[in-house]
């Protein structure tokens, strides 16, 4: 024990020695880079989403495990593999999660072509009024949404866009011509009714999965298993679910 304490004291003393001031060139370099770096307004939705209660995470994980087992069982004992007693009947949830055993040719068609898609412009005053009238939000959360997440304080019109290009997406928000990047990352379309966004973040972010309904040059999204906290759910509803998104180019 004394030996352990000696080591701790030695480390404390040794670590005290060393540079104590940030050099000016580091500060100047940071300021220079900050001047050229736009803020991400809705970044980290997926990171905040991680804060959901652990029992909810467990429930989601259990659903995924059941779906995977169901898919495996379907492959092993489905109509082609089963010879005794007929195929087992998968539960409704498994059927919903499992891909079709023989996908139609249409499933391989990209449901969303690369391009820029926009929501119809919204009046900032309407969106602010809706947020302020929401009784599930605290005053701090209202301020956060209006001034930080959407950065629309004092604006008139806000327009959201999603830009898809070669597996990458960028979400932007335009308030009276001032454009911010909300979030960005990679996307995938595992089938013609599912869009998965993988936000770029500093830690591991869980993918955001949406049900997709595409029609011609427009599409609508509905998040699978949306966040339960109102302050997290509002960006999802406004940004992703208030469609349709219509192709601009």
């Amino acid at each position, binding site marked *: 024990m004394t030996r352990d304490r000696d080591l701790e004291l*030695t480390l*404390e003393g040794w*670590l005290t020695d060393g540079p*104590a001031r940030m050099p000016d060139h*580091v500060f100047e370099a940071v300021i220079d880079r*900050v001047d050229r770096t736009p*803020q991400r*307004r809705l*970044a980290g939705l997926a990171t905040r989403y991680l804060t959901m209660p652990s029992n909810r995470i467990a429930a989601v994980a259990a659903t995924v495990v059941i779906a995977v087992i169901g898919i495996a069982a379907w492959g092993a004992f489905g109509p082609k593999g089963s010879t005794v007693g007929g195929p087992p009947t998968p539960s409704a949830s498994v059927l919903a999660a499992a891909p079709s055993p023989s996908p139609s040719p249409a499933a391989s068609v990209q449901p969303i072509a690369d391009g820029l898609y926009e929501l119809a412009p919204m009046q900032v005053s309407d969106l602010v009024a809706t947020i302020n009238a929401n009784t599930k939000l605290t005053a701090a959360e209202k301020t956060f949404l209006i001034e930080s997440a959407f950065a629309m304080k004092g604006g008139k019109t806000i327009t959201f866009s999603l830009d898809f290009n070669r597996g990458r997406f960028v979400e932007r928000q335009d308030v009276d011509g001032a454009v911010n990047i909300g979030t960005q990352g990679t996307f995938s379309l595992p089938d013609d009714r599912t869009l998965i966004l993988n936000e770029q973040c500093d*830690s591991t972010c869980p993918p955001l999965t949406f049900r997709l309904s595409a029609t011609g040059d427009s599409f609508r999204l509905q998040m699978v298993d949306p966040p339960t906290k109102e302050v997290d759910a509002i960006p999802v509803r406004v940004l992703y679910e208030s469609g349709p998104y219509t192709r601009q180019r």
Partner: protein
Amino acid sequence: MDRDLVEAARSGDREAYADLIRIRGDRLYALAQRILRDVDRADDALQDALVIAWRDLPGLRDPDRFDAWLHRLVVRACLAEATRERRIVAHLRVLPVDVPTTGDDFHAVADRDQLERGFRRLTPQQRALLVLRHFEGREPAEIAEILGIPVGTARSRLHHAHRAMRAALDAEDRAIAVGGRPA
């Protein structure tokens, strides 16, 4: 007040963010230096962390968590920097000491060199744990929050980091005893 500065910076005020950096810069720089033990790498890691913090600040819902969040970004940037390919040893610069030490005799210098080499034998994660505990004086719960791990895991890893440091120093002792100089 800091909370006002954080809220202003979160809304896009670059001057407010510059003020926040001025207030915290020295401490964060010292943290990065002690984890990485390399002036150039610490410069790079701190710059990266502070730019990422600016970029992602609007996503920080609770301004009161700014400091823990910023520390987390700096530690992560240090770990990322440490895992990059090592630069040529000749490019390493000796850490300057701002505060002169007293009793800096031959033995103290030898001890410091021994500690330096022993510390460099640790993994970057172990170094970060020891710096957060013994330089910043943080409790395991705070370390857990900064590293994004459970408190029990932080305690366990801290214990293993101490053991690793002890083993590294013992290895240094053995190397000196046989007259060799460790790499």
